[in-house]
């Protein structure tokens, strides 16, 4: 027995001995908890380049995006914060109020000149997390992309129709894309429209064609700010979708297919129009994901659809993207021993072009080389042409794929022409909606449940064989009773007070 116990004890000792924490002198260590989904090796080229260029011993805790929230919540609860991390919403405000975040303001002038330069006057102060003059958080403005409604030009040619400009024409094209064999393979295997409940982007432009900003708050004529379900033209749009569904134009699997499957329909050439942001369809995934032959320039294959609303005469663009002022901000923990180093690091990596290129493209002349830096043309060199090797060495990894947090980051600078142009054109016709930059209590309390009701309603109203209006009224009642009325009241009040 004694033998056994001592064996067990020895085992435990061995286990804990395997975890020697080495203390280092010399350069300051900054721990940075970063979310991302790349397979990177522990020590790599980019990381050592960062350390060399900044003189800071950067230690990255790299957490996959699906688990980031769980991990950071646990660390907050245990009060063991990394030096730099990202945080959003009410938790961010609570952390600030509890005095657990560093005010960066005193350091910005000296250590964060590029950060200061990248923000417009007053822009930094608008962030919810920043109070008065104090700066607690820096936001990532690289994700501001608008969705475009793309159509395949070759299919249009095949069915002899023009790019649709009205709802009626849209319907005609969708019909033809379903029944007139637009891909010319002699089989009835295409759909006019693919939308998926699990991919809200896919509905955006059809709803927009009826004047409805999809899946966000809507401003009604009487000043009420409420769910898009209460938009007076909602049922009109549902009726349109019901027609598409019953005639077999809308892919009948819309309720079950995953977001990826909805994309795959497009890559596979099963559908000729798709609602997407330009980064996905025209940049990263072009041409690699397309199963059929695609021309070198995406502009030769796609065109943007611009529907004009009969009633108002306006062009029905995608939803206007707003920099979410309560969304993720990089913050520095109060427990960080060298906040000046942390700021210097952020300034270099995410607010300077060299830093952005380093985290996005990798080490210049080792991993990639510029062909035409002006126009964002580059090539990756040798083994780093291979994505897996490139990422294992740290390329792409520390940038969340965007290459900096500024509006003009590495990723944007390397856009292809079509992606760049369609972004600009769509932005010009973007559909505005009442964006509320604060966190409403009712949203925190009921938001996701209300959204689930909206999605349930959308799916069921499209397929139901019962009385559409009666069922619609039921869903509205449910939405209102499950906290919707409170949400609506708070949103309306805020809008009336502030806009």
């Amino acid at each position: 027995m004694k033998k056994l116990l001592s064996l067990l004890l020895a085992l435990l000792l061995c286990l804990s001995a395997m975890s020697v924490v080495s203390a280092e002198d010399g350069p300051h260590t900054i721990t940075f908890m970063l979310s991302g989904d790349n397979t990177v090796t522990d020590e790599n080229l980019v990381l050592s380049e960062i350390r060399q260029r900044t003189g800071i011993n950067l230690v990255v805790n790299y957490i996959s995006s699906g688990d980031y929230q769980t991990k950071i919540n646990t660390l907050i609860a245990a009060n063991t914060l990394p030096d730099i991390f990202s945080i959003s919403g009410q938790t961010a405000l609570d952390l600030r109020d509890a005095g657990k975040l560093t005010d960066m303001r005193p350091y910005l002038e000296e250590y964060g000149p590029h950060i200061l330069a990248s923000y417009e006057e007053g822009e930094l102060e608008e962030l919810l997390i920043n109070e008065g003059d104090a700066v607690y958080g820096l936001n990532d403005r690289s994700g501001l992309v608008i969705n475009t409604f793309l159509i395949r030009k070759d299919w249009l040619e095949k069915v002899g129709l023009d790019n649709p400009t009205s709802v009626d024409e849209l319907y005609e094209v969708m019909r033809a894309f379903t029944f007139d064999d637009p891909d010319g393979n002699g089989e009835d295997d295409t759909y006019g429209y693919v939308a998926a409940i699990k991919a809200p982007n896919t509905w955006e432009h059809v709803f927009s064609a009826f004047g409805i900003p999809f899946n966000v708050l809507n401003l009604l004529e009487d000043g009420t700010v409420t769910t898009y379900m209460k938009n007076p033209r909602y049922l009109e749009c549902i009726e349109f979708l019901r027609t598409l569904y019953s005639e077999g134009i809308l892919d009948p699997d819309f309720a079950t297919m995953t977001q990826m499957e909805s994309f795959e329909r497009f890559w596979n050439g099963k559908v000729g129009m798709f609602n997407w942001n330009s980064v996905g369809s025209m940049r990263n995934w072009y041409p690699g994901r397309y199963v059929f032959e695609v021309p070198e320039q995406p502009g030769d294959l796609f065109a943007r659809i611009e529907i004009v609303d009969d009633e108002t005469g306006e062009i029905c663009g995608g939803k206007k993207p707003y920099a979410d002022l309560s969304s993720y901000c990089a913050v520095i923990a109060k427990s960080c021993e060298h906040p000046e180093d942390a700021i210097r690091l952020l300034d270099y990596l995410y607010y300077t072009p060299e830093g952005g290129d380093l985290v996005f493209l990798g080490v210049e002349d080792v991993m990639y080389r510029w062909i035409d830096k002006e126009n964002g043309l580059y090539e990756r060199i040798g083994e780093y042409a291979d994505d897996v090797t490139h990422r294992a060495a740290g390329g792409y990894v520390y940038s969340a794929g965007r290459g900096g947090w500024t509006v003009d980051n590495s990723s944007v600078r390397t856009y292809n022409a079509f992606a760049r142009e369609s972004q600009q054109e769509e932005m010009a016709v973007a559909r505005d909606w009442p964006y509320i930059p604060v966190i409403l209590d009712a949203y925190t309390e009921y938001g996701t449940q209300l959204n689930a009701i909206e999605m349930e309603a959308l799916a069921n109203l499209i397929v139901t064989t019962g009385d559409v209006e009666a069922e619609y009224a039921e869903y509205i009642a449910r939405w209102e009773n499950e906290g919707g009325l409170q949400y609506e009241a708070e949103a309306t009040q805020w809008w009336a007070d502030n806009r």
Partner: protein
Amino acid sequence: MVNSGCRPKKRVSAWHSFVRSLHMDFLLYALLIPGLIYFTVFKYAPMYGVIIGFKDYNIVSGLDNANWLGFGIFRDLFQRAAFQRAFMNNIIISFLKILWGFPMPIILSLLINEVRSRAYKKYVQTTVILPHFISWFIIYGMLYALCNLSTGAIPQVLKSINETFGVRIDIVNYLAQKETFLNVLIISYLWQSSGYGTIVYLAAITGIDQQLYEAAMIDGAGKPRQMWHVTLPCLRPTIIIMLIFRVGSIMNAGFDQIFAMSNSLVISVADIIDTYVYRIGMEEAKFSLATAAGLFKSVIGLVLVLGTNWIAKKVDPESGIM
């Protein structure tokens, strides 16, 4: 008559030395120490966490500073219509899963035990556990490949039947129909979990004293009667304990499966407590709500376990957990 007990019952011999027994029992208690330390440190020490369910907990300010809400969170939860719907679905789905899913591994084990060829037995044993290792997301992917209306195998077969025989069978996506969804849910559950469930029963069957079978044969029992009078009675303690465990987790209706398979068209029959709590808890770190829901599930589990254990004891004093 066939002897239906696993072993003859004998009284503990009377002559053992009291001193020696004390010495023995001391060692037995000592053996328990590492396990008890483990449960105390890793399971009981963190259990103060259940009070999160009664407090207005915020991860930043911590547990000590949170206000007591008493049963406020529970009241709030129970009042929500979506929770009530989830609760009902939870019970229906769990009940169906126990009804069909509990006997399946037992039947399967008895069948596998009848296979005489060792190689074949090994082959079957290995294959039946395979589905356990495939995540629900992938199983859903396969079901989707079978059921989806544009390329799915089932609709295509039905379509050709309709065309060849001039009949009109309704072609629907079974995953997106309220009426058929529960069937898909239960069948895929049986397929995924029955094989893995046989591991315990097969181990128990292996442990049955071969002399009992020999005795039964001498009494003239054929295979079916041996199964009924020897194997099943010997499995009884295992079956009872597995049933108690299963009943204790009755409120776990299978989060992973439903999370992967549910969609907006079937959510009204598929939403369970766990998926509901996950959904509303995701937005902000609503630990109080999640803890309250978990506690509610545990209490129901505890009551049912005590009930089952009590009944089990009435039937067979040797069985049960406590």
